[in-house]
């Protein structure tokens, strides 16, 4: 074997070592979900066993997970759509008119600890009788999704060549038309990316739902957390439930993986 070949083999061995940790945790999660309660507490841990789908069935039938998945889906979708609707024009304006002060406001929103929102919002929502409603949760999720969408979209709109818009203006388009007909279609990729990132962050949000949701609006992160709070930890149930709630996120992440990296790095590379 020549030197180049040895290097190549060593490189791939290193690569395998570096991808074992991420893969193993997900594989183990699925395996916990596929084992029975008894198999889960055996030592040494079982790696080969007869898989069962009972836990997944129980998660849907006894723990009502379909409802929690729907709740999370509704909240994440509406929070994302509202954020797009009001966030896109804002991001466009900040990008085109270099409104630095406004972007600082968005940074403040990203720095504020989430716990600080809980008490004031709890008090307001209780006064308005909105505890355990979708309205309350969607409003609080805007705290996450709106700054995220604006922040990501500023970078994308800055990438739209200004010459195209100037040409359209000369042709008699008005400003709001150049936004709708030129800037928006040209940043379609960016919009899809930021919408998906926003959806994922809303889906994963735990703290707001922990305090502001109730039996009617409970989201999946709180539902899976509750597997632990009845004194005994239901390992098999956690494995199945965790697999179910992580799955949609991973599918999303998989289909837009290039764009997610692009979306996250855009901010980082531009600084």
């Amino acid at each position: 074997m020549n030197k180049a070949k040895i290097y190549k083999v060593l490189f791939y061995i290193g690569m395998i070592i570096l991808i074992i940790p991420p893969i193993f945790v997900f594989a183990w999660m699925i395996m916990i979900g596929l084992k029975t309660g008894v198999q889960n507490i055996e030592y040494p841990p079982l790696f080969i066993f007869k898989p069962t789908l009972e836990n997944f069935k129980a998660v849907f039938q006894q723990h009502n997970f379909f409802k929690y998945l729907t709740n999370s889906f509704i909240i994440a979708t509406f929070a994302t759509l509202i954020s797009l609707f009001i966030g896109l024009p804002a991001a466009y304006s900040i990008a085109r008119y270099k409104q630095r002060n406004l972007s600082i406001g968005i940074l403040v929103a990203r720095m504020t600890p989430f716990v600080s929102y809980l008490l004031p919002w709890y008090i307001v929502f209780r006064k308005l009788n909105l505890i355990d409603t979708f309205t309350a949760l969607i409003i609080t999720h805007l705290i996450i999704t709106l700054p995220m969408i604006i922040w990501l979209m500023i970078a994308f709109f800055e990438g739209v060549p200004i010459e195209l818009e100037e040409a359209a203006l000369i042709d008699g388009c008005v400003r709001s038309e150049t936004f709708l007909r030129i800037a928006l279609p040209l940043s379609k990729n960016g919009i899809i990316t930021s919408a998906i990132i926003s959806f994922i962050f809303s889906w994963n949000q735990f703290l707001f739902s922990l305090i502001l949701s109730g039996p009617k609006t409970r989201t999946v992160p709180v539902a899976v957390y509750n597997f632990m709070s009845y004194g005994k930890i239901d390992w098999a149930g956690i494995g199945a439930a965790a697999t179910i709630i992580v799955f949609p996120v991973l599918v999303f992440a998989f289909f837009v993986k290039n764009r997610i990296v692009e979306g996250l790095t855009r901010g980082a590379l531009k600084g």
Partner: protein
Amino acid sequence: MKKLKETIINFLDNHISIAFPAPAMITLFIVVIFPIIYNIYMSFSKWKIGLGSPKFIGLQNYIDAFSDPRFWNGLKVMFLFSGLSLSLEIVLGLLIAVYFNKEFKGSNFIQTIYIFPFAATPVAIALIWRIMLNPQIGVLNYFLSLFGLPGSLWISDARTVIISLVLVDVWKWTPMITLIVLAGLKSLPKDPYEAAIIDGANAFHVFSYITLPLIRPVLITALTLRSLDNLKEFDIIYTITQGGPGIASETLYLYSYKTAFSFFKAGYGSTLIIIVFLLVLLFNVALNKIRYRTEVL
């Protein structure tokens, strides 16, 4: 009717730099700024949630914080957890990115695998880690035993609990740093590298004299991005240890949550939140200064 529509469009066009951002900014003001102001006000008050109404007590909460041993513990845990996890994530993220920074079969696959940990729902992942970290029957101690190593008590021991949580955080977020740095490395100019090879520089020299200085701004931005969430880490710690054993892994942020929502001391809880906020702000201002300086150099 048509005239009205035209008037609206005209108005929008003439005031586009105000009209476009206005809805988002007003929404942000309501959802973000109002709670901040409320917290500042509350931090000067004493109020047990559900009992009577808030009483103004001036700086008393802040004075109390400085003589509260649990406050100092929270600060210590926060510094340990964030210091360890952020530095490990940056160093490992950078090294792994340098390792993968070449053309090879499967680079697309790596990218996919590395997105999964940080996209996955933190609570779900934290629960799985909690199971894996179980000292009696957890799979991590089993792996250690395969190598003939003694098992660890992990999250059940005050001495190892922070490092166990750091392990989970590093597992979840190093891949994100890797992907950001990798994208940064791909956009670096090629010339310095070619010149260095002609000059006969070795790999270590290339890394420390060319790659590192060039990638520094990206690293600092990645650190900024990461620190925004890391200093306020809640889901992982709350799910895995809830601050335990005792208060050995209770960060200041978690303590502020417990103060307000387990002990129902709204005023003191707000004070602690404000202090966390100021620390995050301070850290970011400092990072920004460093970044500015590296750009000047």
